[in-house]
């Protein structure tokens, strides 16, 4: 068996004294593991860092075998990611989310999104919002997607400011008013992809929203704790956003 694909390193595990088992998110073959011979050498160690994009050739005698990777560096992001808290926690948090997916199950959209977000992690205005969209995309691929396009009660497509914690569907301001305390806040940038302005309050609401549904649908049923890197990333992203826009820390209403 042999295939060639592009992949992003998620993590490594030592194998013997000189090799590693690499866990990569590939475009066409999903999350895949394989041995890299000599992976602990001085030459390969900088290449095999989480976040780096690689050209991979996987070989095994049978498809169900672990197999071996031959790797070549395509994009060395790890050095840049290591410079900031948002970078290292971001790559670890997204890798933890991708580990929720079954092995060898193709999720090309998530692979592409992962690459785009890794390239945007040094832009605080985008990093947090993109990460939340990534969490929602993972939820969707796991079969627990939220419907944020129309109000669950009235069907209207505007004025959506809540999400029902039961159904995961958006609720308009008018329809949700009587149950406002029980509903989750829906920040404006999530249903409206055109909305570029994301402030710290909106981002905190978005982290709470995606965290709630990840907990309810994924972590709790599997009996696992949310990854510590998620909390660290949320803290770092909010801090970075506040530092990048200390004056205008809240988005202005259009026309005001």
């Amino acid at each position, binding site marked *: 068996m042999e295939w060639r694909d592009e992949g992003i390193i998620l993590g490594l595990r030592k194998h013997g004294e000189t090799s590693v088992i690499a866990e990569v998110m590939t475009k066409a073959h999903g999350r895949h593991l394989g041995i890299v011979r000599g992976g602990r050498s001085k030459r390969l160690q900088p*290449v095999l860092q989480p976040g780096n994009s690689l050209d991979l050739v996987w070989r095994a005698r049978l498809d169900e075998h672990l197999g071996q990777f031959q790797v070549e560096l395509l994009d060395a992001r790890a*050095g840049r990611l290591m410079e900031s808290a948002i970078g290292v926690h971001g790559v*670890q948090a997204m*890798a*933890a989310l991708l580990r929720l997916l079954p092995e060898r199950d193709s999720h090309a959209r998530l692979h592409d999104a992962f690459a785009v977000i890794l390239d945007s992690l040094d832009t605080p205005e985008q990093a947090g919002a993109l990460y939340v969209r990534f969490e929602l995309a993972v939820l969707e691929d796991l079969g627990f997607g939220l419907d944020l396009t129309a109000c669950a009660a009235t069907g209207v497509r505007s004025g959506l400011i809540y999400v029902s914690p039961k159904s995961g569907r958006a609720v308009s301001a008018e329809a949700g008013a009587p149950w406002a305390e029980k509903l989750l806040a829906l920040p404006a940038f999530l249903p409206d992809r055109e909305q570029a302005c994301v402030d710290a309050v909106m981002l905190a609401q978005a982290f709470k929203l995606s965290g709630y549904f990840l907990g309810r649908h994924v972590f709790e049923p599997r009996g696992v704790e949310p990854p510590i*890197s998620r909390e660290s990333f949320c803290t770092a992203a909010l801090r970075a956003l506040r530092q990048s826009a200390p004056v205008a820390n809240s988005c202005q209403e259009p026309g005001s």
Partner: protein
Amino acid sequence: MQKRVTGPEIERLIQLLARVPGLGPRSARRAALHLIKKKDQLMGPLASAMNEAFDKVRICSTCGNADTSDPCTVCTDPTRDQSVIIVVEDVADLWALERAAAMNAGYHVLGGTLSPLDGVGPDDLSIAGLVDRVARGDVREILIAVNATVEGQTTAHYITEQLSGFEIKITRLAHGVPVGGELDYLDEGTLAAAIRARTAF
């Protein structure tokens, strides 16, 4: 079935030696044979040295270093500036930094790095012990000397967050071109880090 050529004691010696890093079954056999040949000059002293070390080695309750006393030699050394603590992943890193003899400071051994794939979380490392040492108020600088890997730097940033409430200087090792390194042979990540961390000449 292969016939046995040695008694179970020697087989056991070979099996145990094969577990030592750097030794496989073949080199373990060679080492065992060498020990047997040099029974009085090497095997006897080695056995007694290992026995003594086994009885006396302990982990320092202050810094996590391996030594025969608790607190360890590093922690009780009056010539060291204990207000500066170098945080390392492993005892091997402590020994490596001591070989460099670049700083005369105290140490704190974490016992690894945060590794989600291996299930190593903050509670598995001695981060709480480091925070306790800083909270005592005698520390003015923490130098985080962990590996330049994503896992190492994740741990470094986590420690920085845990120590953010204390008024101390937190530093880390520079990333860049190693001594004797040729630019042509360096990976792009190291080169980019070296350029970002350039200094005035």
